C-alpha cells in the first residue's frame, strides 16, 4: 500500500472507528522534521535531525472515552491503534460531558516560510557564541539550542470537522551563567520563536538584558531582615503569575473539583482594574500560535480578565460541559498577553522605596489556596527608587489572589519572545526574607 497522506489517514481512522462501533470519534495526525544545533559550555556539541510522526485518536463508545496515541503512520500500526482505542473506550466509564466539536467551518492554514536556511542558522548560532566571548567574556553558555521545525498536522472528527495546518519556524534557547574564578551567578535562560533569522540572537527581546544582569549578579547580598515590600515582576518571570491563575483558578481540574477560588466569580471583579489578560494566538508578535484546539474548534483570541473582571475560564469542551460554563475560544494556556499600563518602567522603579526586581522565580508548584513561596533568582534589590545589589538566598512569599487585587502599576513597555506579550508589573504586600 502506498504511503497515505495525513488527510487520508484521518479519513481511514474515522471510518475504522465508526465501523468498530464508535458513535463519535476524532483524530489528530502529524508529520514533522526538526534540525537543531546544540552548544554546551561555550562549544558546539551536536547537530541533530529528527523525523517525527504522530497519531492520536479518540473514540466515544457508549458515552465512554478512549484515547490511543502512537508515532507510526503505517496501516498495521493504525489498525492496532484503532483496536486499542475501542478497547480502552469499552473499559471506560460513561460520561455525558464527553463530546467532540460540532461542524462549523473547515479551514486549511499554511504558515510556511519557504523552508530552512540551515547555513544561516549555523552562522547565527556561531555569531552568538563569538559575540558572547567578545562582549561578555565572563558568561558561560551552559547550553544553547537553535532549531528549525517544520510540519503539517490534520484534525478531523466524525461530525465532519477537518482542519489542517502547515507551519515552519525557527527557535532558539539559551541557558547561561556568569563565572569569574570561584564565583558563579545563578543560571538564567532565554528562549524565542521566530519566522526569520534577520535578528542576532543576542538582540532578541530581553536576551541581552538578562545576560548583562547575570554578569552583575556575580556579587550578591542577602536582604538584611524580613520585610513586607513591593516586587516588580519582569516579563522574563511573569509567566509564574499568570500560569498560577490559569492552573489554580481557571482550569478544567480546578473547576470540576470545585477547588477554584474563582468558581463563582465569572463576570465579577477578581483583580485590580488595571489588569487585562488575554490569550492571543493570532497576535502579530506570536509565532506559530494555535489555529485550532484539541477539541476541534478554530482558535480565536480571547479576553480572560478585562479591567479586573473575570471574563472567561480556560475550559476545554469537556470542562465546559462538566461545569456548565462556556469553553474558552482557544486552549488558553499559552500566548498570554497582559495589556500594557500607563507607567514608564523607570518611573515604576522610582516609586519603590524598598523591594525587589524579580527576574526569575524558583518556587513550589502553585497550590489551590493561592499561597506562593520560593526563591528570588537573578533578582535585584530596589532601594529608594533605584535598582542596587544583586540578591542571593532571598525568599518571597505571597498569596496570589491578594496581590493581583491591588496592583501598584503596570508598565507602558512590553516584551515579547514570540510566545507571550508581557509588561513589567509591580505588586505590593510581599514578604521578602533572607536568613
Amino acid at each position, binding site marked *: 500500500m502506498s504511503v497515505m497522506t495525513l488527510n487520508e489517514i484521518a479519513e481511514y481512522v474515522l471510518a475504522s472507528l465508526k465501523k468498530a462501533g464508535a458513535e463519535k470519534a476524532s483524530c489528530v495526525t502529524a508529520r514533522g522534521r526538526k534540525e537543531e544545533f546544540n552548544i554546551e559550555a561555550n562549544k558546539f556539541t551536536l547537530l*541533530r535531525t529528527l523525523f*517525527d510522526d504522530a497519531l492520536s485518536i479518540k473514540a466515544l463508545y457508549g458515552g465512554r472515552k478512549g484515547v490511543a496515541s502512537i508515532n507510526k503512520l503505517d496501516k498495521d500500526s493504525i489498525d492496532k491503534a484503532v483496536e486499542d482505542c475501542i478497547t480502552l473506550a469499552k473499559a471506560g466509564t460513561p460520561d455525558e460531558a464527553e463530546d467532540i466539536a460540532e461542524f462549523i467551518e473547515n479551514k486549511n492554514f499554511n504558515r510556511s516560510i519557504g523552508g530552512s536556511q540551515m547555513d544561516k542558522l549555523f552562522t547565527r548560532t556561531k555569531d552568538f557564541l563569538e559575540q558572547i566571548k567578545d562582549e561578555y567574556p565572563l558568561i558561560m553558555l551552559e547550553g544553547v539550542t537553535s532549531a528549525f521545525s517544520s510540519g503539517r498536522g490534520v484534525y478531523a472528527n466524525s461530525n465532519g470537522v477537518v482542519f489542517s495546518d502547515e507551519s515552519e519556524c525557527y527557535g532558539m534557547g539559551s541557558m547561561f551563567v556568569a563565572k569569574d574564578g570561584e564565583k558563579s551567578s545563578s*543560571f538564567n535562560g532565554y528562549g524565542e520563536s521566530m519566522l526569520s533569522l534577520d535578528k542576532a540572537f543576542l538582540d532578541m527581546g530581553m536576551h541581552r538584558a538578562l545576560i548583562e544582569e547575570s554578569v552583575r549578579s556575580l556579587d550578591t547580598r542577602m536582604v538584611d531582615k524580613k520585610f513586607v515590600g513591593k516586587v516588580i515582576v519582569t516579563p522574563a518571570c511573569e509567566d509564574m503569575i499568570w500560569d498560577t491563575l490559569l492552573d489554580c483558578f481557571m482550569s478544567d481540574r480546578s473547576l470540576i473539583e470545585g*477547588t477554584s477560588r474563582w468558581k463563582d466569580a465569572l463576570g465579577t471583579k477578581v483583580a485590580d482594574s488595571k489588569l487585562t489578560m488575554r490569550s492571543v494566538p493570532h497576535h502579530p508578535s506570536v509565532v506559530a500560535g494555535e489555529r485550532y484546539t484539541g477539541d476541534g474548534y478554530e482558535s480565536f483570541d480571547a479576553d480572560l480578565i478585562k479591567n479586573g473582571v473575570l471574563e472567561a475560564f480556560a475550559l476545554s469542551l469537556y470542562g465546559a460541559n462538566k461545569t456548565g460554563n462556556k469553553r474558552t475560544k482557544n486552549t488558553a494556556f499559552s500566548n498570554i498577553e497582559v495589556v500594557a499600563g500607563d507607567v514608564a518602567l523607570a518611573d515604576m522603579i522610582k516609586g519603590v522605596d524598598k523591594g525587589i526586581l524579580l527576574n526569575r522565580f524558583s518556587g513550589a508548584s502553585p497550590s489551590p489556596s493561592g499561597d506562593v513561596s520560593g*526563591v528570588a533568582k537573578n533578582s535585584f534589590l530596589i532601594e529608594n527608587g533605584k535598582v542596587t545589589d544583586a540578591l542571593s*538566598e532571598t525568599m518571597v512569599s505571597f498569596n496570589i489572589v491578594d496581590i493581583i487585587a491591588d496592583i501598584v502599576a503596570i508598565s507602558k513597555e512590553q516584551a515579547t519572545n514570540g510566545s507571550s506579550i508581557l509588561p513589567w508589573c509591580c505588586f505590593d504586600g510581599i514578604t521578602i526574607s533572607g*536568613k
Partner: protein
Amino acid sequence: MLQDLLSVHKAEFKDHTELRAQVNTTKRVTLLLGNMVSNSQSEGGGVSARVYKGGTFGFASGAEYSPESVKNVIAAATDNAGFMNTHVNLGEKPLPQAKAGKAELKTKVENNVSQSMLIDFANTLDGIITKKYKNLTARTVIADFLGMEKLLVVSDGADSHWYQPRSTVYVFMTAETSDGVPVELYEPFSSHGHFNEIFTDPNLLTNKLDELYEHLMKKREGVYSKAGLCKCVMHPDLAGILAHEAVGHTVEADLVLGGSVAGHNLGKQVASDLITMLDVAHTFNGKTCPLPIYVDDEGVTAEDAVLIENGILKGFMHSRETARRFDVAPQGNARAFAFNDEPLIRMRNTVIMPGKSKLDDMIASIDDGYFLVKTGNGQADSTGEFMFSVELGYEIKNGKLGQAIRETTISGVAFEMLKTVDMVSDDMVWSISGFCGKKQPITTSMGGPAVRCDINIGGR
C-alpha cells in the same frame, strides 16, 4: 519486544557510533471526583544513531523501525557529524573506550498490563476514599504505567537490551479550612515493576491513605511558617530530593563545565562528615535499586559513582565526553528518555547513606524549629542554591510536634547547608515516582534518611 535490526550494522561503524532502538509505552487513568477524565495509552518508538567525530556529535532519528530506516538514520547522523566536524573542527581526541560486553534483559518485557487493571484499581481505590474519608472536598486518583525498552549497539563498549517497567498510583486529597480556603496533599505510590505485580489490592494502600487524611485534617488548621533560618528535621521522604536537587545536579559534569560552583570544590569539605552520598548504578545493600541501570546509552557498563564521602566532594557524574575532558573513567550516567533524544548526564539512584540517630531523638532535640515531612517539586542552581517545596510540615516546640504548617518552600546553598547537618537517622526511604527535567524528562530514583540541619524557610 524489540527485534534486533541493529547488530548487523556494527561492523560498518567507522567513527564512534551509538545505535539505539527504543519504545516507551504509557497507560494512564485519571479519576477526578470519580469522573474518568483520562483513559489513555500511548506508544512512542523508533530508532536513533549518534556519531562522534573530532569533538562533536551528529544525531538523527526516525519513528519507523525497519532495516531501511536504520540505514537512513545512520547515514543522516554520519552526515550531521561530518557537517559539524567540517564547520566547527574542534580537533578533539577520540572518546574514552568503554569495556566491551553485552548486557542481556534482566526484566521480562511484557505487554499484558491491560487498561482494565488500571481502571479497576483506580475505581476501587476511589470508592474506598469516598466511603472512608468524609471531610474531603475533592479527590483525584491516577493510575499510571510507564514501560521503557531499549536495544543498544555501540561501536565500542557494551551492547545492551534493557527494560524498565514503572507503576505508580497518585492520590490527591483536598479539604477546606474553616474560612473556605482549599488545602491539598498527595501521596505517590511507585515501584519498579508491572502494574499487576505492584498493585495487587487497593486495600493495601489504606494505611498510608489514613495517614495522608490525618495529616490533611491537621493541615486544614495549619499556620504559616516563620520566614527565615531555622533548625529543622527533614523526614526521610525529603532526603532523596535533598540528594537530587541540592547536590546531584550541581555535580553533573556538564553543569560543572557550564559553571557550577562544584567545579572548584572537588576534594574539599562540602558537607558534615556525617554525609556520604552515592549515585548507585543498580544494586544497593545487596538489593536491586528502584531504577537499575546496567549499561548506559553510550554503552558504558554502569558502576556506582561516589559523590561525597564523609563530607568530602569526591567526584562528578560523567558522559564519555566529559570523562575525556576531566580525564576520568565514565561510570554509566549518560541516558536518554525517548528514542529521539540524545544521551545526557543523568542521575540514577541518588542516595544519602543512613547514619546512626533515631528520628524521634532528632525531633526531641529541637526547641524551636520544624519537622518537614512531604515535598513536591524542587530546583537546583549553578551557585549550589537549591529550593524545594514543602507540602507538609509541623512546628517543633520544646522537642514535640506542634501545629501543621501551610505549604512553603525551603532553600539553601548546598555546600553550606550540608555542613550544618549534625544528625542523620538510621533508616531510609526510596522514591521513584517523579521525573527530572533537563532538556528531556527522565525517570530517576532517590533516597535517604532523615537529617537535622539549618535551612532557610519561606513564610510570613
